[in-house]
């Protein structure tokens, strides 16, 4: 990790301990089997809120901790390790949008509620199956937003949407004029269709959509980092115990070199992801490049590690009883969200003028 302050280190270690002890993958499995309407672990979320995580980014004046993206990322990474089903990434990205573009009144109205977990907020941007912020048709007239948003993270439960319309971002409360349809996806998390029909909308002036989706992408990268590390560590442990031909699998050089290659990619992924989080916190002009490097590298690496997790576990990795499939399925969803690797490579080149 980048050099963390004492406070950041404490929070990260607490998150790690909490995820390991209170929210292991078995908690995700329970949530999947119970399939609550919100499609996240509500009791777990309550604990996270009590620990102050919903307000990590939110200024102290509005009831938050006033910390930064490196801090949020270090917590999301721990949640990713155990596949904790939490709305933290979504609600934090939406809070960012309000912090970037909200008026004092909008901030005062929503940020304290997000910080206390009273409101779960989320971004509603895409209108199709692929991330394409240039293709938005939803529009606002007379203060009412209409349009259909697809695959909205935590869309089943969010009480506040930061929705993209042709002329910018709007705050839309999740009641009047909002219809949600659950989409059952491979990761068993919430990615609902949300249709706005003349829903009352309050404009966020002066915030750039790209700045918001970059923050959402960076948060997603942190979760991906935790997942990749855990998938890799579990695979490494398995290779040390599984015996075939009278040898543990870990002693076969063909497998050692595959693991060494994955370890190499993982270290680069960590650097790229931390680099993006730090670029955001530093207010650097190259945030888009840094985020694109992070999301492309993270996408490729998590794809490699999650696929190898199944392959190197062999038959047991194919069973629902084993966790490997959970990592594989969640991995593809996060790889796709906020632009897949190809999307970010394309943007990176365009930003570089080629």
């Amino acid at each position, binding site marked *: 990790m*980048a050099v963390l302050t004492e406070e950041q280190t404490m929070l990260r270690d607490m998150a790690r301990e909490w995820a390991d002890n209170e929210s292991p993958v078995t908690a995700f499995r329970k949530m999947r089997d119970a399939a609550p309407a919100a499609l996240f672990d509500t009791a777990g979320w309550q604990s996270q809120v009590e620990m102050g995580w919903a307000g990590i980014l939110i200024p102290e004046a509005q009831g938050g901790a006033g910390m930064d993206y490196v801090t949020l990322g270090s917590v999301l990474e721990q949640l990713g390790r155990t596949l904790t089903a939490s709305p933290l990434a979504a609600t934090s990205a939406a809070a960012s949008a309000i912090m970037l573009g909200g008026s004092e009144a909008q901030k005062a109205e929503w940020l304290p509620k997000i910080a206390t977990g009273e409101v779960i907020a989320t971004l509603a941007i895409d209108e199709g199956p692929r991330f394409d912020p240039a293709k938005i048709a939803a529009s606002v007239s007379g203060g009412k937003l209409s349009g259909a948003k697809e695959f909205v993270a935590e869309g089943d439960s969010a009480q506040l949407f930061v929705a993209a319309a042709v002329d910018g971002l709007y705050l839309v409360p999740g009641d009047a004029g909002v219809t949600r349809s659950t989409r059952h996806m491979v990761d068993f998390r919430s990615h609902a269709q949300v249709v706005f029909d003349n829903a009352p909308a309050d404009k966020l002036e002066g915030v750039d959509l790209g700045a918001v989706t970059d923050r959402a992408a960076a948060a997603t990268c942190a979760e991906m980092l935790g997942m990749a590390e855990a998938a890799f560590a579990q695979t490494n442990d398995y290779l040390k115990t599984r015996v075939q031909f009278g040898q543990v699998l870990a002693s076969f050089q063909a497998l*050692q*070199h595959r*693991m060494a290659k994955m370890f190499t990619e993982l270290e680069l992924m960590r*650097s790229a992801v931390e680099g993006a989080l730090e670029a955001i916190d530093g207010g650097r002009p190259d945030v888009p490049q840094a985020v694109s490097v992070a999301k492309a*590298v993270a996408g490729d690496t998590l794809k490699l590690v999650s696929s190898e997790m199944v392959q190197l576990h062999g038959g047991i990795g194919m069973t629902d009883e084993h966790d490997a499939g959970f990592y594989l399925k969640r991995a593809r969803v996060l790889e796709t969200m906020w632009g897949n690797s190809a999307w970010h490579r394309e943007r990176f080149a365009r930003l*570089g003028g*080629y």
Partner: protein
Amino acid sequence: MATAEIDAPVNALDAFRAQAREWLTENFDSALKGKDNSMSAVEGPNNDTPEQAKWKKAIGDKGWSVPTWPTEYGGGGLSRAEARVLQEEMARVGAWNPMGGSMGVMMFGPTLLEYGTEEQKREHIPPIVRGELRWCQGYSEPGAGSDLASLQMFAEDHGDHYVVNGQKTWTSGGQWADKCFALVRTDKSKKHEGITFLLIDMSSPGVEVKPIQLISGSSPFCETFFTDVKVPKGNRVGPEGQGWTIGKRLLQHERNSLGGGGSSAARLFAGTPLSALAKKYVGVDGEGRIADGELRTKIIRHEMDLRAFALTLKRIQLDAKSNSGPSAATSIMKNVGARIMQERSELLIEIRGMAGLGWEGEGFDEDALKDTRHWLFGKAVSIYGGSSEIQNNVIAKRILGMLDHQ
């Protein structure tokens, strides 16, 4: 090197900065800026101009070529914080460290400081500090590459000296070196425990050096033959049979300098960007993109890889400063550095087409000819200093704790 561990208080650092500035003003001629004559791990002939030689002597006599080495052996005796200040001040005026990349400074010196006797340190360290003597490495043999410990060159005990017979290969800069640190066998009945670390004078009778022609043309690598070469016992570092331990320690210094030196990554960021070169040779489409989509994607991937590598380098340096011990990421740097350098060379060839494959002479850009030779020589990067396969073994066994076949 106890003093090097203690960071000086800030006001003392300011005083040191003033001192360093003053010394640089007196000793570094600003006309020299940009005329870097650094020694490197692969030694070349000495072609220093009188002005360069004067700077080399000044910094060598001051001991600031190795700022944190102890003063009793000619080093600078500075703390790490002071050394950083010195580095900043040198960068400010465009001064360089002529000895910074030499084999003596990067690899042999640190090892001798750790394992050498007082007498050996007094004899060998000061000339390294001043850049007066060039060292070469006698490790690999024709039959001992990746399996280095199978080396055969034999040192026979003759009382107060050894008589050495055998052959070393890939002796970088052997034809220009004054001295060689070598791994030799003193016991044929044991593999690792039969190896001893010896210092051999290259001007000794019986030493013969032949340069090796490589796929890239002439090279700094040599074959070195030893026939009945007398080496005094005082030139043995550590006890007999301890050479493997000492030799491996030296390899750690080598691998760190090959992958993580930082200068290599910085060099890759310098120069014409690949994208600009590709636009020139390949052209652009209606939207200003490189017209060859597949090439464009390769360039993007390469640039992203390079950024992740540079960020990793930064992370390792931060970890080192925060005293949390060397980061596990250090182990990946040689392989990633090699892959990035080689991919860049391959892309330079691909971008230029046939014009990127010229060997010499008329009709080719000078830059293109240089890049072509660099492409070929660069194939060595994933072979020397522990091949990529050996590095992967190291990662699997030491970092990931994967076991050997039983």
